[in-house]
């Protein structure tokens, strides 16, 4: 596996950092004596391959000391294939000046606003080339390219630090070419972003510890989906494999097919074929082909993210969700693209017009959820009062909290396809040793009733 990345940050009128990283190595996952072992190295010689393979087997045999049952895998047809993710403008083929020039221009626009203290413009370009071969006969070569970034302005005063960013923090990322960043028009949005950061300092505080209607912008709904649906549908969690760290899941196997996760409005799809999604590929890191299916169907929990081993435990087959964070990490179940599908509520303006009273919350700032994925609390960068169908006063420090199935059960409207965006989470942590995955989450704005807001000490 080879991975090339470049990260650049323009901050407060200076090039704060330009970092490139190149990584190249291989990992071997082996079953011996009915148990798993994994070893990896960056030295790509035949002798080292022999050493690493032997070490993986030695580790597997050590694992067998605690074995309760032999590892059992669901079947997969070994594939021979090549795949490259689509893009219009190869970011690695552009000149450095073209890449950094966009950030310099956007950051300069942020600084035109009086009162901003810290300004940032960031891009990340990322490419992974990987070859998967198995003793079963698979031979799969894939090249995945991603582009991400964004702008942010911070303002401080009177004991407050307020931030506004665009499009979604400075980490909005897709599987795409450089066109992904140019299409967002960072320069054109910079004045508004900076102005809102300063305006937040004198905005009204979010109403304290009360219940009201909440409309979540699409970027916030995508993270809500990631944390409260994407993680609990990971079958390794549900079976206890992550019990000591990432946690387990309230979506236990006995609930599959019958548990009411949300209202009839809620349809959540597992889809590793979605264009642009950070969880899009042709085959996962077990050689299982990309797939699409439902996690939540009209509010009912129906499907997990599965591996070959975990699916076999339920008498099912894998839907291809095993991915490793680089060559030195073992593949584990990761979200692919887990997306809230659009509804029929029209545009965001239509949804606001249809709302008598509530709060619109936009762009995540704080996120936390318990280890079974039930009790969550999120904060966003900005909020607005909604009164009699109109967007009203700006609100600072908005937060909301709830219990996952109660919250999704309170959803009575999801905006239509015209508002649906494939957002991305390029930093999803899981596993020991730690792994960071890139996951996709399509979402449109949605409305939730009777939500507890304003939780701050």
């Amino acid at each position, binding site marked *: 596996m080879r991975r090339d990345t470049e990260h650049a940050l323009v901050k407060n009128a*200076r090039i704060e950092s330009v970092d490139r*990283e190149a*990584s190249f190595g291989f990992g071997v996952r082996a079953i011996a004596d009915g148990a798993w072992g994994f070893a990896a190295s*960056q030295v790509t010689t035949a002798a080292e391959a022999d050493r690493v393979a032997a070490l993986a087997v030695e580790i597997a045999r050590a694992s067998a000391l*605690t074995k309760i049952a032999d590892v059992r895998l669901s079947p997969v047809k070994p594939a021979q294939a090549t795949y490259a993710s689509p893009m219009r403008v190869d970011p690695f083929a552009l000149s*450095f000046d073209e890449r950094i020039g966009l950030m310099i221009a956007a950051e300069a626009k942020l600084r035109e606003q009086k009162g901003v203290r810290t300004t940032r413009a960031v891009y990340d370009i990322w490419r992974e080339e990987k070859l998967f071969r198995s003793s079963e006969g698979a031979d799969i070569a894939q090249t995945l390219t991603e582009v991400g970034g964004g702008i942010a302005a911070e303002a401080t005063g009177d004991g407050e630090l307020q931030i506004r960013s665009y499009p979604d923090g400075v980490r909005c990322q897709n599987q795409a070419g450089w066109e992904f960043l140019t299409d967002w028009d960072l320069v054109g949005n910079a004045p508004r972003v900076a102005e809102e950061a300063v305006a937040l300092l004198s905005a009204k505080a979010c109403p304290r510890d009360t219940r009201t209607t909440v409309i979540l912008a699409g970027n916030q709904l995508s993270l809500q989906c990631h944390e409260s649906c994407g993680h609990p549908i990971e079958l390794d969690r549900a079976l*206890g494999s992550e019990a000591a760290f990432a946690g387990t899941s309230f979506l236990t196997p006995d609930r599959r097919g019958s548990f009411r996760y949300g209202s009839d409005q809620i349809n959540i799809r597992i889809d590793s074929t979605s264009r642009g999604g950070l969880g899009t590929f042709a085959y996962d890191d077990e050689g299982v082909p990309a797939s699409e299916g439902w996690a939540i169907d009209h509010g009912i929990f129906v499907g997990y993210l599965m591996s070959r081993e975990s699916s076999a435990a339920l008498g099912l087959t894998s839907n291809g969700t095993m991915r490793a964070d680089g060559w030195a990490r073992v593949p584990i179940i990761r979200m692919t693209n887990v997306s809230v599908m659009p509804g029929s509520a029209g545009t965001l303006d239509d949804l606001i017009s249809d709302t008598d009273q509530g709060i619109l919350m936009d762009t995540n700032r704080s996120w936390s959820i318990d280890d079974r994925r039930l009790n969550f609390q999120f904060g966003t960068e900005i909020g607005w009062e909604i009164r009699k169908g109109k967007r009203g006063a700006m609100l600072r420090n908005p937060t909301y909290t709830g219990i996952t199935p109660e919250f999704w059960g309170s959803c009575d409207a999801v905006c239509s396809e015209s508002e649906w965006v494939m957002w991305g989470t390029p930093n999803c942590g899981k596993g020991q040793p730690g792994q960071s995955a890139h996951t996709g989450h399509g979402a449109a704005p949605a409305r939730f009733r009777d939500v507890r807001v304003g939780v701050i000490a």
Partner: protein
Amino acid sequence: MELGEKALRAIAEKALRAARGDQVEAVVIARNDSLTRFANAAIHQNVSSRVIDLRVRVVKGKRVATLATDRIDEEGIRAVAEQASALCAIVPENPDFGGLPEPAPIPSAPSAFVDGTARATPRDRALAVKQVCDAARGKGLRAAGFVSTNVQELAVASSLGIWAYGPQTTCEVQVAAIGDAGSAFGQRVSTDFATLDVRAASDEAIRKALLAQGPRDLAPGDHEVVLEPYAVYDIVGFLCGQLTGLAVEEGRSFVGGRLGQQVTGPVTIVDDPFDRAGLPRAFDFEGRPSQALTLIDTGVARAIVYDSATARRAGARPTGHALPANAFMPAAPMHRRLEAGTRSRDELIKDCRRGVLVTRFWYTRWVHQLRTIVTGMTRDGTFAIVDGEIAYPVKNFRFTQSYHEALQGVRGIGSELSLLVAGEAFGLQAISARVPALHLASFTFTGATQY
């Protein structure tokens, strides 16, 4: 197994020779990490990897570029150095950049390397896991967690004459003991696998898990608390992240403009890279000598830490706390210690007439940085304390609490310190802390979950 100073020096010197710039820095991080993970009382992930990372920072006037690679053959080293040099020639100038640090004498620090840890085998780790799983099974519980052994070598070299090398070993056991209606946690960290107290971690988790079954509802609100060291580690971690030059510069630190003022109750937080009971290291990731600092002295904010760039912008001196060159956390206290008090853990509980015993926090995130308000959950062993005794398990809480304000109500500090480590960051294990249990007058629980 370690590579040794000679091997890392050869890598760094090749990079320095191949780069073209006014100044060049090479940082080599070599890691050999093995981790045996278990759940449902059996090993399910068991991994070992050997990684050498080379980071080359090239400076031409006010232009700076950093490239990293893990391709450590002749061609890979030359390529990263040449590419860093080429990139450095075209990046725009950073007018604030003041150059790489000058060399300074590096003091000696206690060794953090134990040969036996470096030589631990997969079988050694698996046998340790088996000990935990068997003990849990014997009490009708399931065990999950990991046993790890790690070797890390760090070398820093620069064209200005800096050379620093330090090896370190760590080993760790984490155990969650899980019953049908409750769980608990234990953790131990050491440099020496021979003295890693796997049994103590296991016994602690099992004993507490047996008490944790069938948690009851307890109303959220402001409660007096006793926090085990695992929870205190989180508080110290968040606060230390704000005790940096960058945090103050960006206006997000609770000590900004308040050095010399009382910011917490009577706790003392130091950064001590020479603590023999911690993970000592004599230099930072710019090759500057490490420096012990008292950050908060009996509640009074005394110092913040710097790398060379944030120090220059603040008009201060670097303190020897640089992380690998990056823009988001360029410096941090890396050898944290909240100084011990005089009360045993049992005495802290006994001193609490009515309150909550918290084993550890989970998924803690900023809500309001400047006020150090954090939200998170309790996890793996939360109990009601009634009349100075652990009375019954309670369902886990969500809290939304200013961490430094919580420390304003310190009622007791534990007499024993636990060595704990953060997960890997920047491809290395750089941050550790030694912390006691704490008894606090009030902690704000803003919600609860269903278990």
